[in-house]
Structure formats: structure tokens, C-alpha cells
């Protein structure tokens, strides 16, 4: 599904990603961990085509297509979704209008007719249930005045509406209370199919208790320095990152 090769990317002339290699196959869940500032969100933003980041080297293919040649909206239509670490408030744009524009843009891209208002609202109601999003929230402006947890829940609601094949969750668990975490993670699992894949960025094992990763990667200073199974996340929870840094220092000396 996704193949990242020797990816270098920078922002404001500062190199953040320094040669990432990562392959994600259909149906796989990959967890990405690493200290603050390691470059996790940078990688997500590059994947979805944020204009502030410049790719200086390397390639990304998504289902055989050159992802870097696509606009952000085209990547979305191709099936990529990112749950933002910090969702943006858009005063004056209602959730309904926003989602309708998004869903119908994708339908247009796929050569389908736009949904009627009735059909759309029906789908909206169904999907809201998946993450138990309050109807009051979906009647407001996009994220405006939402609490931190409500914003994260709203991200997964949008994911439900857009049915991506590849989802990036950038710290979707942060800001959620214990119950909300379970609801949102359950919602994600309901949306997951054998074909769909995900890159799950988190600092904590608790999310991975619900969303079970096939692989766990550690990003350090712009490189993936360690990859393992689910047990790697448990070990990080236990021991932090210093031992990985130490291992890497030894390796570099060799």
C-alpha cells in the first residue's frame, strides 16, 4: 500500500527527516513512537502533503502512485486520512457544510453523483454513533469551542465519514479521558477492515491496548532506528528511549 524510500524532508530549511524507509502493506497497523520533536508529525504532514514541508530526497508511492506528485486533496481522495495532533478550529464553517463538501468532493473524484441532503444527513447520523459524537457538536462550527477530547473524537468521526484506506492517527489518544479513549479506539476498530492500514503515532501503550499494532517503530532524530513487534511498545513504556539511544550510539561507533 505505502512505500517510503530514503525520505528526507525539511521545514524552513532545517532538515527534520533524514532518510526514512518504511513499507506498510494492506491491512497492517504500524505504531510510530519516539520522543518529542523526533519528527513523527513531520512524517505525517509530509505524507498528507502539507505545503510547509519540503521533500529534498527520496520517494513515496501509494498504491503504485507517486504520492509526492499529488495535491493534498487528491491524496485524500486516494484514501489517505490524517487525524491531526492539533485539529484546527474553523469559525463560521458548520460541520455539516464542511463534511458535505469533503464527502462530495471525494465522490466527484471517484466519478460518483453527489449525495442529496437527505442521504448525507442520514450517513452523518449513522457515523456519529460510531464515536458517540454528540449531535450538538456536529451542528456547530468545525472544532470551534470543542474541548481537547471532543476535537479528537471529531477527527475519528470525520474518518468514519470519509472511509479512508490508510489512516494516520497523530496522537489521537492525547486529551482523551479513559472512557473516551475506549470509545474512540473501538470506533477506529469498527472502521478497520482487512484491506485498510494505519500509522498510529502515540506516546503510550494504553492506546495500543485497544488498537493492536503489527509493528512498532521508533523514530529518533529523523530516522527509524528500531522496529519490532507489539512488545517493543511495552518495553518503551517500561524503560523509555535511553536504551535505544545507547544501542544506536554503540552501533554508530562500530
Amino acid at each position, binding site marked *: 500500500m505505502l512505500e517510503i524510500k530514503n525520505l528526507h524532508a525539511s521545514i524552513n530549511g532545517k532538515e527534520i527527516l533524514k532518510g526514512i524507509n518504511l513499507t506498510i502493506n494492506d491491512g497492517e497497523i504500524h505504531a510510530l513512537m519516539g520522543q518529542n520533536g523526533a519528527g513523527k508529525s513531520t512524517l505525517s504532514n509530509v505524507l498528507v502533503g502539507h505545503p510547509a514541508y519540503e521533500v529534498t530526497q527520496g520517494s513515496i508511492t501509494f498504491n503504485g502512485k507517486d504520492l509526492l506528485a499529488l*495535491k*493534498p486533496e487528491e*491524496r485524500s*481522495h486516494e484514501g489517505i486520512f490524517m487525524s491531526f495532533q492539533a485539529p484546527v478550529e*474553523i469559525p*463560521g464553517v458548520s460541520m455539516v457544510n464542511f463534511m458535505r463538501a*469533503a464527502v462530495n*468532493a471525494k465522490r466527484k473524484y471517484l466519478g460518483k453523483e453527489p449525495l442529496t441532503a437527505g442521504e448525507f444527513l442520514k450517513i452523518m447520523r449513522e457515523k456519529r454513533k460510531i464515536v458517540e459524537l454528540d449531535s450538538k457538536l456536529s451542528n456547530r*462550527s468545525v472544532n470551534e469551542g470543542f474541548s481537547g477530547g471532543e476535537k479528537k473524537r471529531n477527527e475519528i468521526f470525520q474518518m468514519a465519514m*470519509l472511509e479512508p484506506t490508510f489512516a494516520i492517527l497523530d496522537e489521537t489518544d492525547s486529551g482523551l479521558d479513559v472512557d473516551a479513549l475506549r470509545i474512540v479506539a473501538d470506533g477506529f476498530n469498527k472502521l478497520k477492515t482487512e484491506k485498510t492500514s494505519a500509522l498510529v503515532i502515540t506516546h503510550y501503550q494504553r492506546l495500543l491496548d485497544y488498537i493492536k499494532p503489527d509493528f512498532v517503530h521508533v523514530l529518533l532524530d529523523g530516522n527509524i532506528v528500531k522496529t519490532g513487534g507489539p512488545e517493543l511498545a511495552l518495553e518503551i513504556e517500561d524503560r523509555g528511549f535511553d536504551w535505544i539511544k545507547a544501542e544506536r550510539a554503540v552501533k554508530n561507533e562500530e
Partner: protein
Amino acid sequence: MKSEQQYIELFQQCRQLLSSQSDVVLDALRDEAFRIFKRIGLPDKKAERYKYTDVQEAFSPNYGLNLNRLQFRINPYDVFKCNVPNMSTLLYFIVNDAFHSKEYPNAKPSGGIIISSLNEAAHLYPDLVSKYYGQIVRKAETPSINSEGGQIIDGEFVPLRKNNEPDAITALNTMLVQDGLFIYVPKNTVSDKAIQVVNVLTSTVDLLVNRRVLVVLEEGAKAKLLFCDESMSDVNMLATQVMEVYAGPSSELELYELEETNMKNKRFSNLYVQQHDKSKVTLNSISLHNGLTRNMTYVSLEGEESVINLYGGVIADKEQHVDNHTLVDHKVPKCVSNELFKYVLDDNSVGAFAGRILVRNDAQKTESQETNANLCVTKTAHMFTQPMLEIYADDVKCNHGATVGQLNEAALFYMRQRGISLDEAKLLLKFAFVGEVIDKVDLEPLRDRLHYLVEKRFRGELNKCSGCRLC
């Protein structure tokens, strides 16, 4: 030669003709207006009140005037088709400055309400019309003797402070006026339907139009008015409009203005509102499409516990120019004023907002809020903003602020990630931005209609006016 010269000569030549074509009530104020006009001339760019709009240039071409009252051979009721569902209004037309008097089946006001040609009303109800005609302007332009000094020049009191100086365009309008509209709502009378007036601008040659509107709400009267300016012909039109509004004690007025003219249109509109005890007035003007527009609004709060809501939305692109100049004059205690103007400027358009709030010595317990927010979509669009709060009373709550910004990049990217194209995302943000002003419209069918029109406008589907869309 300065631009005013041709109007001075024109007036001198046509003085007799003007008299023969209009009622004495309208005629009575011409000479005084002419004296003022001759003395002050048209403002140049050094004039503080007109610094954002080049009046000299706008008035310099040689426009024709329809002095002989030739009828334009259109029946607006045939040309305009009603296409707003749920909006049942009393619909009237003014063609250039002439009230279209042909009866329309739906247009029958109730309870002694008068809606008619101003010239005709002056003839039929001379006492009523002369009580208000020109008097609201006069009061607005008269400085209070105890607070402001001045001197007598040419038999006229000329104030030291520039703000109370008579307005040249109002004077010109009063000099040359031939007709317009009169709306009268008697004491404790409520107009159950909204009154919609479509100003149709049409001509085969370049034309100067001077339209005059007088709106009187007696004590306890209530009305909702909607004025739509529409241009129908592709010639250069210069339209001056002076509207005087008298809001009696405890009256309630909602006045909406929608401009949908073409690039060759120049609009100079001066609106004078006089409010008495416990009156409530809401003004909302939307500049949807235009050429050059300069709207001046002067609100005089003469009676305690009055409320004025003053809103405006501007959408401009290409070479369009919209200048809103407002003055809210808190003369007495316990009044409330709320002001919100929002502009979305694209391409090379120019926007200007000068909003002055004056709280005089006596106006204790004034509450006043003024906001001007602007979005410049391109680097070549220009916004001039000048909120002015002038407070001479000590026990007041006043706030004002202005912002000029660009589209929010983070929001644009968020929307694109969800699959919304960049153009569509920009449109949603612009739409949301002016939406705040449209949401202030109380008339629900009008509000829905405005949302629809604004969206069309942003999509570029409203470049040319094709008739009334609101009735």
C-alpha cells in the same frame, strides 16, 4: 476647472425647469442647498470625510440628467420575476429616481401606511412631508451651539468643527432632486409585511440620478424595509441617494440595503437616521457587487434608551471600490450602539471603513461596540480602516477594534486534507467570514437568500445583474 462647476452652471440654467417639474415642498430647499454647494464645492482628497474616495473624479464626467421626466419604457413588474419562496413582501419599484406608481396586486399596505412617490406625497400631504423633508439632514448638520463654536459666512452658520459641516453630495442631491420615495407608518401601526423597494438603474446614455427617500415611523410604529439597487444597463451611471429616516419614540425599524450593480455604476449614498426615546433601529447593508460605492451613515441618538445596530458586509473584487463612512452620535444617556462591518477583498479591490462613535458629555451610561474585520484575499487588495472612538462622558462602556487579515492557512490545509479543493476551501472561509453579518438579518427568507447570493457571488456566478433576485 473643478468638478463642481458644471453642476453649479447646470443648476442655474435649469432652476425654472426643476421648479416646474416638482412640488413646492421639494423646491423650497433647493436654493439653500445651492448656496451651501457653491460655498463648499465637491470635496477633494484632502477632505477628511472623503479621503478614501475620489469624489472630484467621480463627478467630473459630463453625465446627462433626466430633467424633463421622460418615462423609461419598462414595466419593472414584467421584467422582474419573483423567485424567493416564503418571502411575501410589499414590492415597489423605483426606476432611477422615479417611483413606479402602477399598482401591483400584492402591494397594498394596511392601516394608513403610505408608500408612494415623494413628489406626489409632497403634493398630497404637504404638511406631513414638509415636517420631515430635509429636516433630519438639517438637524444632523447643525452643531449644538453650546459645545461647538463657529461663525456666520454668507448668512449661514459655519461650525469650527469639520464634522458638522454640510455634506456636498447631500446638498447636490437636494438641489437637483425631482422624486424618490416616501414611506410613512402612523402611530402604533405595524407593517405586517416587509416592504421591498427595488431601485432599478437603467438608461441608454450616461446618466446622473438623484434619488431621495424619506422614511417616517411615528411613535410605536414598526416596519421592515429592504432596498435593492440593481443596474439594468451597461452605461455609466452616477447615482446619489439621500435617505432621511425618522424613528419616533418606541418605534422599531429594520432597514436592509443590498447593492447589486455593475462595474460602471457609481453610488454615493447618504443615510441620516434620527432616533427618539426607546426606538430601535437595525441597519444592514450588503455590497454584493458594484463599481464604486461610498455609503455614509449618520445616526443621531436623540432619545434615551435607543438602540442602533449598524451592520455591513462587503464583497469586492476586480477594481471595485467600497467605502463605508459611519458616525453614531450618542447625544443622550443610556443608548446602545452595536456596529459590525466585514469586508472580503479580492483582486485589486479597495475597501475603506471609517467608523466614528461620538459620545457627548451628556451621554452617560452609553454602551457602544464597534468592530471592523477584513479579509484581503490577495496582496493587491487594499483595505483602509479607521475606527474612531471619541468619548466626552465618563460613565460609559465602549469598545472598538479593527483587524485586517488573510485566509487562515492552517484551516485551508485542514480542509484540503479532508478532500476539499483549495478553491473550495477558500470559498468556505470567505463565506464563513461574511456569514456573520448575514446572520444578523432577522428576516429569515432574506437571510437564506443572502447566503445563497453570497455563495454565488464568491463562485463568480454573479458578475452581472440580471434582475431582482429577492422579491
